[in-house]
């Protein structure tokens, strides 16, 4: 176990390079380059906030950062679920040549999407600071924990899906559907109070997605510290995925190459 992580550490230059090269190819030959990662969620937020604030009679200035936080975190999760399922398949040229721990190929997916998330979150902090200046406080520092928490959640999940995705090549279609279903029952764009009004409290209280989002939303939008339950649910979900990924990986890791 510790030697496995030792090998991951030894390969650090390689997976750092892979993650950075993903970003380079994402932004290559585009005039705005890196800025697209900020502009894209912002544009989407403007559109959604305009429509939804009318539909749900919400105040657009506070609802817009709510949507923006939902979009960027959700984009991160989708990137890791759909991208994660393909991580091993796309890295076949490397897997066939050198025996690195396979988890570095999902780490690459997690890292590159984490960097996109960090960039996109600049817009979130900026916007919130302008429209909700009264919320600025020490609790904002706690929002930075969203990055390690999301990484801990996404890495084992992506690894788990990568094993499944190597075995079942049509998995991305299924995960696309699952993510869409998850989106509808989670407070990503819809406000938590809308679920509560409909008596669907369980979809909020036991939903790790809600709790992960609260890590940024509580300080930014409500000026409060995230609750222990928010960290607890996120980390328990991460631990669960980690155990599953370890159990699957223990049996499947060496065999992956035969399926590529």
């Amino acid at each position, binding site marked *: 176990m510790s030697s496995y992580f030792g090998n991951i550490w*030894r*390969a650090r*230059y*390689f997976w750092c*390079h892979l993650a950075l*090269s993903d970003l380079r*190819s994402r932004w*290559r030959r585009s005039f705005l380059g890196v800025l697209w990662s900020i502009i894209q969620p912002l544009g989407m937020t403007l559109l959604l906030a305009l429509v939804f604030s009318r539909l749900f009679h919400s105040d657009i200035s506070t609802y817009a950062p709510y949507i923006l936080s939902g979009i960027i975190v959700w984009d991160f999760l989708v990137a890791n679920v759909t991208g994660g399922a393909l991580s091993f398949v796309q890295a076949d*040229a*490397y*897997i*066939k*040549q*050198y*025996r*690195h721990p396979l988890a570095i190929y999902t780490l690459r997916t997690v890292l590159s999407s984490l960097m996109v998330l960090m960039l996109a979150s600049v817009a979130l902090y900026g916007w919130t600071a302008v429209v909700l200046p009264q919320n600025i406080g020490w609790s904002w520092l706690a929002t930075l924990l969203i990055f390690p928490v999301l990484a801990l959640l996404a890495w084992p999940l992506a690894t788990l899906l990568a094993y499944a995705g190597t*075995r*079942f*090549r*049509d*998995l991305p279609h*299924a995960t696309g559907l699952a993510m869409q279903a998850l989106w509808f029952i989670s407070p990503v764009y819809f406000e938590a109070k809308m679920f509560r009004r409909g008596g669907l409290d369980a979809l909020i209280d036991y939903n790790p997605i809600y709790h992960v989002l609260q890590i940024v939303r509580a300080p930014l939008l409500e000026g409060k510290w995230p609750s222990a339950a928010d960290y607890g649910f996120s980390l328990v979900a991460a631990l669960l995925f980690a155990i599953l990924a370890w159990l699957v990986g223990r049996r499947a890791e*060496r*065999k992956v*190459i*035969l*399926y590529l």
Partner: protein
Amino acid sequence: MKQPHISLQNVNLHYAAVAFRERSLKALLARPFGRATAASQVHDIHALKDVSLEIHGGERVGLLGHNGAGKSTFLKTVAGLYPISSGSLTVGGEVRSLFDLSLGFEPDATGRENILYRGLLLGLTPKFMRAREKEIVEFADIGEFIDYPIKTYSAGMQVRLAFAISTAVGGDILLLDEVIGAGDANFMTKAKQRIATLIAQAEILILASHDFNALRSLCHRGLVFHHGSLIYDGPIDQAVDAYKRANGLP
């Protein structure tokens, strides 16, 4: 330092049939309802059958065998890439392998950048690769193309660069799969010299090839594979004869 060595005891390797049958969630869900036809029955491939051998430091070993005999599988097993089904395999020493040479290049990046990337793939540090870069560029000898993207390279140039990178880096055990035939005559001579230098440092070379002359000049021990079994292990000249006999060649 301990001499590098390779030891295989009754090694068997199977490719699971499920790995190349139709693999989808649809197929998995449909399985209980469908009837198995003769055509859909794909059996596991027994790629290495009960292989036992020892290779010690300083040995140059040639692999012979028809296509599909198990040469590449053997090399990839030694490299630790393939999981063996039974038996035991111990490999002592750092393994460097040259398989599928054009794999792992980034087509949009320049040759110089790819030297670094490939070095990182091989588990080396950026510092080490920068120190070796000049020497690799000189050996590959592809002129100003080194600063062009890899996608503009010819197949031969790619192989030269890959060979230069993979052999510039020290390793105790060098595994080569049919790469000697690549490159022009000029480069062939250099490649052979390079391999000779590597072997001179008392390292193990295992070379799979169909070129008897290359095998005779580079190796002194030959292994003949036939349908996954090791049928001959001995001096290279006799190995070539054994290979010809087994395959009905003159």
